[in-house]
């Protein structure tokens, strides 16, 4: 774990180190943030009594009261627009939108207001709010439940967009997001909700920084969210075939950590970008283009990407064909002009 930045103070009442699922880490981050700051409120659909359809807000309403965690009418633009108004009035709302596709009704509020109000008012109001969206697939969900819409947010100036791939980052990044003076779209990889890892609540994360998840010298895999796990798997397999694969967890989709990523790719001279979303005009294309431009002189081969197809997300039974997998990553690696082979 290379998160060492600690310029964001955590006001957690106590610090803990424990092994837990990403879901539990997110729940803990919310609880600690609510406890630390009276202006933090958590709301959305089914987040109160039920504790969220993924149980991320489990127990918060009970523990902190209806005032701090509550349900709203079923209207996403209403949720985000109301949160924007609260943020204008000094609160720090953290809203949950139930699935990627169900964030779309709020798109105008997000793009035209949440992202712009700080700029519009020359900083006269800030928008310290977090929009949590369970994202991505791999869970056998039916349509509209498995989309990856990070490109829409990352393309929008004014929004910070992050996604954790470990329970530690889930905790630390969510705390950082809630502390941020700027609006953050916080994308939670559904597939990883139940994956476990160690969480130290005293570790802080700095938004805007990538994380070297695995060292390697031959090729760099760039991924975020659930794709980091895939990259790690592929790196393992590649290692067994004699290739030393570096994995960078991009974490912060916007702003982007050019420094870490550029240095990483320059060090290996080869790169593959991995993401689940359709590749066209995506965050993956952005990363690919940036790396190409910044590492041009260092590249042994074109930067490749392994992404979802440019089709609507697949029905459950088609996921195995749709989703990037280890073989597809290995194929991409194989295509990177290895002169020692043929």
């Amino acid at each position, binding site marked *: 774990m290379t998160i060492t930045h600690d310029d964001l103070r955590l006001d957690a009442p106590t610090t803990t180190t424990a092994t837990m699922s990403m879901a539990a880490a997110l729940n803990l981050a919310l609880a600690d943030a609510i406890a630390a700051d009276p202006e933090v409120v958590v709301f959305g659909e089914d987040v109160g009594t039920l504790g969220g359809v993924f149980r991320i807000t489990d127990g918060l309403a009970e523990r902190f009261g209806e005032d701090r965690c509550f349900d709203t009418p*079923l209207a996403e633009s209403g949720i985000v627009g109301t949160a924007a108004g609260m943020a204008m009035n000094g609160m720090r709302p953290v809203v949950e939108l139930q699935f990627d596709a169900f964030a779309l009704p709020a798109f105008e509020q997000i793009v035209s207001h949440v992202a712009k109000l700080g700029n519009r008012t020359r900083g006269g109001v800030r928008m310290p709010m977090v929009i949590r969206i369970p994202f991505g697939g791999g869970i056998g969900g039916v349509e509209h439940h498995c989309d990856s819409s990070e490109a829409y947010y990352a393309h929008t100036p004014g929004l910070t967009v992050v996604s954790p791939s470990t329970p530690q980052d889930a905790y630390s990044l969510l705390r950082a997001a809630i502390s941020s003076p700027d609006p953050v779209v916080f994308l939670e990889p559904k597939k990883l909700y139940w994956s476990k890892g160690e969480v130290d609540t005293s570790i802080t994360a700095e938004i805007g920084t990538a994380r070297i998840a695995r060292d390697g010298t031959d090729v760099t895999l760039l991924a975020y969210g659930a794709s980091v796990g895939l990259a790690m798997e592929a790196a393992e397999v590649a290692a067994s075939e004699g290739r030393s694969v570096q994995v960078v967890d991009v974490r912060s989709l916007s702003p982007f950590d050019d420094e870490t990523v550029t240095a990483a790719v320059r060090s290996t001279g080869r790169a593959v970008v991995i993401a689940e979303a359709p590749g066209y005009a995506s965050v993956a294309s952005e990363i690919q283009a940036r790396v190409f431009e910044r590492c041009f002189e260092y590249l042994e081969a074109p930067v490749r990407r392994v992404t979802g197809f440019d089709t609507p997300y697949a029905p459950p039974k088609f996921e195995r064909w749709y989703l990037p997998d*280890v073989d597809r990553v290995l194929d991409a690696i194989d295509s990177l002009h290895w002169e020692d082979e043929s």
Partner: protein
Amino acid sequence: MQHTDMLPRDSAVRLIDQDGQVVADEHYAMPDAQTLLRAYRGLVEGRRINDQAGALVRQGRLAVYPSSHGQEACQVGAALALGDADWLFPTYRDSVAVIGRGVSPADALVLLKGDWHSGYDVKEHRVAPQATPLATQLLHAVGFAYAAKKRGEDTVVLALCGDGATSEGDFHEAMNFAAVFHVPVVFLVQNNEYAISVPLSRQTAAPSLAHKAIGYGMPGQRVDGNDVAAVLAVLGEAVDRARSGGGPSLVEAHTYRMQAHTNADDDTRYREREEVRAWIERDPLTRLRAHLTASGVLDESVEQEYAAGAEDIATAMRAALNTDAELDPEDLFRFVTETRSPQREEQWRMLRDEIARTPAESMGGHR
């Protein structure tokens, strides 16, 4: 129409009470015995479909199932209120209504089985694909009805949604477009008291959901959604009005979701068992059975016939769901657009080559 005529009654229209007794109504007539018998058959089949689907989820044959157990009177009423040429715009919860329109259970459950996003021929059955994004289908229904009206057809469109969905902006826009363009649409809100865990009291402060209608300039009515006779009477009037050029209207059916939101939900977290049990008494089947038995229309042999019919449907469901469909990976690319883009063609070629290189059983793992 007087403005106040657009307001719903103070209490829901009811023609048969919980004990099967007829409730006199000055305005709405009791449907005839044959219709009620047909409805009863629908209820029996609907209940069986709901229960069978629940079992198939537990057996892992369906990915998910949002049950309409308890809401069958609305489902059956919706299917029966429409003529053959009319259209239904259902939600994820309305599989029983979809099947009631003639779609085979196997086709209706393709979405929930995971074989594709929708499994029936929408034009053959005049049933739009079941919508998941809430309230969005209401606008489709309005546009669809607009086109029918423009062609001079006398098609009526019935659009379904839940109580929670009435909070969405699209509900508002659909109601308003329907009223302004005076299209032949009937909106049926199945108010089952919950949107997943969120109770109606957190959804609206209005006297009733039907009170929203006057804000659009259309009539609103409330009906006991567990009384299929009342549902048929109120929907029947609304459908007739729409067909004869009287414009859209809003019907709120008071009902209750007896089971969890879907199998993935745990409703003990947000509602008392007491509350659920209380609704057993208001069950749509028992009340109609009591009424039809008392009036001599229903006897043991008809009951058995219906039960056998329902069992046949359940058998067909099991057979269909226990069969693995032949899936063609190229389908991922086939329907996105009419002409396949070079980008998708390239992606398909990549996938095809991958598959060709891979022993069938290991797809998705390492090759």
